[in-house]
């Protein structure tokens, strides 16, 4: 534990102090720095323990408490504002010390925890996170060890993607519009075979490019009977809607379809 390098506690006239002077005499301005060096009472206690190369598990409470109180007295003498935590720790140390001095009366109370146990637990816990902080600080991090590599992008203008639509949205929209239409009652919508309407679109599409096609060419034998019927119905519907017309030059001649107009 003593191997852990301590940062300089203070600089006095430019001289770095890594060890507090044994006689505890610290120039006032250095003490202020010293107070900032410690992260709190646990940190100060850990420092005192490490400095004397003691085992946390066997803290000589009387000694440590005395030293701790000396520091506190000095700080107060110098009218440094002491955080309440330091005073709380002093009270706790005094309590532990007094309990250790009491004789252990009965066997039953032998079971009682060592009054130092809680202090030891907290010191060790804090020590772990002191270590963790060092480990974290040592990790390679951006802007110190590693740097984001970037190249000037060729363009910055953003693209706005078209809105996504789900099939369910579509169905919901249709249901809604049909419900609304039914409410008004003017236009009862009857469900039509989709495939006929689809085929109507396909026939029209075909005529869009060809303008003129043989009736028989619309049929695909591989679609089977259903396919033939659907195509036939589509053609009939288109005729009824006056989109198409049938042309036959003479009886039994081939029938042609063409767009009206």
């Amino acid at each position, binding site marked *: 534990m003593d191997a852990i390098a301590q940062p300089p506690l203070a600089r006095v006239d430019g001289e770095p102090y890594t060890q507090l002077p044994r006689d505890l005499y610290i120039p006032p301005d250095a003490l202020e720095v010293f107070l900032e060096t410690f992260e709190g009472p646990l940190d100060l206690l850990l420092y005192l323990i490490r400095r004397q190369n003691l085992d946390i598990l066997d803290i000589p409470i009387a000694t440590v408490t005395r030293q701790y109180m000396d520091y506190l007295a000095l700080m107060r003498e110098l009218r440094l504002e002491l955080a309440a935590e330091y005073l709380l720790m002093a009270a706790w140390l005094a309590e532990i010390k007094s309990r250790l001095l009491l004789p252990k009366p009965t066997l039953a109370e032998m079971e009682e925890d060592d009054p130092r146990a809680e202090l030891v637990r907290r010191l060790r816990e804090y020590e772990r996170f002191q270590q963790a902080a060092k480990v974290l600080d040592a990790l390679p991090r951006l802007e110190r060890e590693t*740097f*984001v*590599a*970037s*190249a*000037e*992008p*060729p*363009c*910055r*203008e*953003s*693209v*706005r*993607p*078209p*809105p*996504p*639509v789900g*099939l*369910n*949205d*579509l*169905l*919901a*929209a*249709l*249901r*809604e*519009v*049909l419900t*609304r*239409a039914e409410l*008004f009652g*003017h*236009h009862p*919508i009857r*469900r*039509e075979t*989709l*495939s006929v*309407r*689809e085929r*109507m*679109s396909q026939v*029209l*599409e075909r*005529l*869009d490019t060809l303008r003129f096609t043989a009736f028989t060419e619309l049929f695909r034998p591989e679609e089977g009977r259903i396919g033939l019927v659907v195509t036939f119905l589509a053609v009939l519907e288109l005729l009824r*809607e*006056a*989109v198409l017309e049938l042309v036959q030059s003479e009886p039994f001649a081939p029938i042609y379809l063409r*767009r*009206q*107009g």
Partner: protein
Amino acid sequence: MPALKTILEAVLLAAGEPLPLERLQKVFPEAEQPEREALRAALAELTVDYAGRGLELIEVASGFRVQVPGTFSPWVSRLWEERAATYSRALLETLALVAYRQPVTRGEIEEVRGVSVSSSIMKTLQERDWIKIVGHREVPGRPALYATTRAFLDYFNLKSLSELPPLAAPRDPDAIGAELDRRIAVPSSDSTTSTESPDD
């Protein structure tokens, strides 16, 4: 120590801005600063290395800069896509009517919806390549007949229009199952059965 051109590559990529030769020199300790000629030679090597890659080294007014060549802008620009907006209910209803009632005229859509269909909706749907004009109805005014496109089917992962969900869609079978379980669980005197009903 890494090669000069490798150090320059690292420095230029980390900088994120054009660096003049003087600044490139200054990334080396004073005693080791390369001559400008050495720097220029190393930068020329990098330029060659980058041929056919996703980056290029160019000299601009304020120095040398690594940039992504313009040929990559189709991909790069998609990085900053804005959030997609959503379509209006009017547009979805129009699309649904074209899908289920095609070929259909705008007037027919308006009749069912009870309101007029704005031109911008028809334009948007055509620009998205989801609907197109497949003909005209031979009535006065020869209104255009709209149908859905192949791109529409592709977008919705449909092989043909017959795969569109039927209008009177049956309820989700899972939901029906859960409903049944709930109903069956009630009359049961055994309180443990209720714990067996699936969560819904």
